[in-house]
């Protein structure tokens, strides 16, 4: 293989490695809560008035949406939460996803978590809360966006990269054998 081509391949490899590293860092960063919420919604879940803080708005499809839930009034006893991101079936071909939750150390009976939004379109953050006053449910509508779509042909052209590589490799093997003969 010619030296300039080897350098080109090396440069592409390094760039690809950096892109993968950047994507991993971005995915991890997407789950972390910023200092200021991008959107704050007041909802009533049965007997419990709640404040829902969304740290990304609109949500980024295929990344986590960090959120926090806090009761607006102090309540006796403990509140437990179940949170899911629910796709709008008329708009989004996806399945509901349970969000990860952990207690918010700064807010009594508050939680924080990350809900995964897999596909662009209309979603809702479904919150079920249970406490001494019974069970309540609330829904926060969301919109998820994705980066602009690349043309389908370009997707296929990129997707076939390993097969082009295989073809080049097989032809090089053939050339190697011919040189040996």
């Amino acid at each position, binding site marked *: 293989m010619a030296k300039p081509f080897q350098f080109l391949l090396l440069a592409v490899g390094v760039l690809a490695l950096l892109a*993968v590293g950047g994507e991993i860092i971005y995915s991890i960063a997407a789950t972390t809560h910023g200092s200021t919420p991008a959107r704050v919604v007041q909802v009533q879940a049965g007997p419990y008035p709640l404040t829902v803080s969304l740290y990304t708005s609109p949500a980024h499809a295929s990344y986590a949406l960090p959120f926090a839930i806090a009761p607006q009034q102090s309540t006796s006893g403990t509140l437990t939460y179940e949170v899911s991101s629910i796709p709008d079936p008329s708009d989004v071909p*996806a399945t509901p996803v349970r969000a990860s939750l952990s207690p918010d150390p700064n807010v009594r009976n508050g939680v924080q978590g990350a809900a995964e939004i897999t*596909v662009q379109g209309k979603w809702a953050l479904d919150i079920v809360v249970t406490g001494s006053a019974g069970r309540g449910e609330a829904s926060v509508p969301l919109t998820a966006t*994705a980066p602009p779509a690349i043309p389908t042909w370009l997707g296929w052209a*990129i997707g*076939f*990269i390993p*097969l082009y*590589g295989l073809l080049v490799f097989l032809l090089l*093997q053939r050339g190697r054998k011919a040189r040996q003969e």
Partner: protein
Amino acid sequence: MAKTFDEIAGFTGSTTLARSLRAVSTLRLVLGLTALLGAIIFLEGTSWDIQWHSYIGRDRTLIPPHLMMLSGVALSGISGLLSVLIESWWARRNTLIAQYSVGFAGIFSGPLGAYVVGFTALTAAVAFPLDAYWHALYGIDVAIWAPFHIMFIASMGLVALGAAYMLSSAAHLAARLGTAGIRTRRAASLGVVLALATVLSLFTLLLFDALEDKNFINLGFMSLSVFPLLSGLLVAFTLVAAAYAIPWRWAATAVSVCYLVLAGIMALFVQPATDWLLTVEHLNYREAPAFTSVVALQWFLTPLVVAILIDVFMHRARRKQWSRSKLTLFLVFTAELGGALPVVFIYPLLPVALAVQLGIAGSLASLLLGLAGTYLGTIFGRNVGESLDSLER
């Protein structure tokens, strides 16, 4: 006639040289097997992922099957990278190592297979976020034939091929040591068999969609199936490569048996793992699941028959001194069986159903297309097999 491992002269040089060769062959064996393990983990994880998508849905990006697949990619990529970095460092201090390595960009030295493993594991790693992007645009129920699924699976298939190259070079270097390297040689040869079976298995995942009628090529007056073309190309390539590369009487058969064993592992672990995670994650099935892995149920059985016939013809050709073109003709028509008769566990009458769907003209045209695939697969398989058979770098 191709040179076999046994015919390579035993290495009887100085102790230092022998020690260096032993060390480098052991390094390639260990890292080649690790890269192969990564590809197998990816294969089994993909089977689990298909089960998860079919019966639960793509609910999160980092679901356990995806984590398993990514672990396989990472393991393979790290093995390839380590192999190149260690040998590059070593080759600067030892000219013998440099002699048995392939240089790259004037900076690196390493076995050819390690470069293949490293680069293709990297393309697999790039394919994963691209696939998440594709799902974000088009939804969760994307078919296997989607651009970045192909990129992901094909990349890992090539990782397994790279592992076969690493292991083959380990076997040949160990053969130079004579009896001292016999265990390394044996382990590496077994690894080559398993690696080729993994290549066959991973690319098999891309064959399923070829059987769906929405993927037939409709010419108006008849429909064509590309299954015989793709299956012929794949089966001929891997089994002919095995028959030329591995100095065993039943090399291709051993590859096809390992191919079935890999499906057996899927059959055993996928559905219990899915049930367990469903409970842990409080999820529900979208529909009642199959009793075992759906991929294992669709696994093709014909490669076993094709492999036995290839081994019989290869043996006969060596004994009777067949011409190269006569052997090629036999291999092409034998491998065509794989494309013509896609017999699967769950539906043994699939070839009949396919023929009825395509009609006589469509079936014959598809088989002719298949012959082109098996011819190319045989030629490429022979080149790769002969290259593997003499590879030391």
